């Protein structure tokens, strides 16, 4: 059963790392998408369209087998964490953008009328309000990200689903083994949901 524990920990680590990466990168991308500089906006849009419109599994295979051909070899776990971060960042950016758009236009204008620069008005006025409104959508992305980590099993990472598969090869009890794995995912997702509720209560007024 240590294999199951190893798989579970790997899934948790992959989720935490990828979400941290996806969130940080997503904030950067959304800034690119809302600043009044056409070139930066184009870069932000291109990023989102590129990563959102190709399946995660394809990205994983491309990075895992493609990067070494270009002379760059990361360990499989880190490659998977990187790819999931890049991919989910596009979704985080879109959720944040809808939050930014929901902040009344007058707020940004007022901030600038008070003498704040674009960066300052984003940082102190628009983004904090936007973040508050997207706690639940971002939590949904975090849950989807948790489930998406199972795809890392296809490129050699032993995470929960892959571990369950390997245990089942021996036990031949798929219903039992995968019900167990399902419960683990359920626990993780419920944890994220509860955390999101907590955060929402803290930041919402």
């Amino acid at each position, binding site marked *: 059963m240590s294999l199951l524990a190893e798989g579970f920990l790997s899934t948790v680590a992959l989720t935490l790392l990828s979400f941290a990466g996806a969130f940080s990168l997503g904030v950067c991308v959304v800034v690119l998408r809302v600043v009044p500089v056409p070139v930066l906006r184009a870069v932000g849009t291109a990023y989102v369209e590129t990563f959102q419109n190709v399946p995660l599994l394809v990205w994983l*295979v491309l990075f895992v087998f493609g990067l070494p*051909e270009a002379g760059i070899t990361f360990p*499989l776990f880190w490659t998977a964490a990187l790819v999931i971060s890049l991919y989910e960042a596009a979704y985080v950016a879109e959720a944040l953008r809808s939050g930014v758009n929901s902040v009344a236009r007058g707020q940004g204008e007022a901030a600038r009328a008070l003498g704040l620069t674009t960066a300052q008005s984003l940082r102190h006025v628009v983004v904090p309000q936007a973040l508050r409104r997207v706690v639940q959508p971002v939590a949904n992305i975090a849950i989807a990200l948790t489930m998406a980590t199972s795809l890392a099993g*296809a490129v*050699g990472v032993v995470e929960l689903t892959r571990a369950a598969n390997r245990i*089942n*090869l021996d036990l031949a*009890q*798929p*219903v039992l083994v995968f019900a167990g794995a399902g419960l683990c995912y359920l626990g993780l997702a419920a944890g994220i949901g509860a955390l999101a509720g907590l955060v929402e209560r803290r930041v919402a007024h």
Partner: protein
Amino acid sequence: MGIRLTSLSVLLALVAGCTGGPSGVPGSTSTADQLLAKAPVAGELPAGSTMDKIRKRGELLVGGSLDAPLLSQQNPATGEVSGFDAELSKLLAKYIIGQPRTKLVTATSETREPLLSNGTVDVIFQTYTITPKRAEQVAFAGPYYESGQSIAVVKGHEEIKKPEDLAGKTVIAGANTPSIAAIQKVAPTAKIVEFGSDPECLAALKQGRGDAYVQDQALLIADASLDPELQLVGEPFTTDPYGVGLEHDDAEFKTFVNDWLREIQRSGLWHEAWRGSIGTVVKGEAPVPPAIGSAEGS
């Protein structure tokens, strides 16, 4: 930064989910047709039996693979599935129905037992290694074939000379293949890295993702015949008895399938099916088929 054209094409094949090597699918259709033409058909079937139901249905539902070279691989151009497992399933269909009509349902290691117990498929032909634990869930006819796991390394890597040398090393294996259990048994400290298909495993080996690649010997021989960088280490270090997976409590059907296996072994059809598939890469005469019921769990 130079991306070699060959590597790129391998990559594209991987992305496309295509698992066929450049050699295409071994075993030409015409020899397979000849084989089926002379295959036997069972006589009167007991009314109400599983085989009678299959005959009435006019189609044998087979759980198997579409991506196992030499065993059960789909030709992407024709849609035809060929290989040793595929040929045997067609022979069984002909034996029951009179026509080689099969319907292949893609099975995976985690769906095989439920597919049989809920009646989605009649039989499983999928390098299904007979083990006592599995025999608690399903019944096995056969064994119909015995294979072994072998080790391959990139040429010039001499540190692995025997299976025990895998200890502490990173070993690549096909996901959900008997290789995993074989590695765990011979070298429990080895770190196993799994990839979904044989070309992916090969690419990973050549990119240094592991020190060795463990896979069914026949597949490795086929790989090595196409890839001069690949080298096999010694002889197979396991014996895996493959069985025909059947519903657990259907003793009548199991006896029927075992009788059919004995018949095709006796008539030489078994050997011809082997020559047309695995025999296209493994040199020498067809092996002696395993004795029916010889594996623990069969």
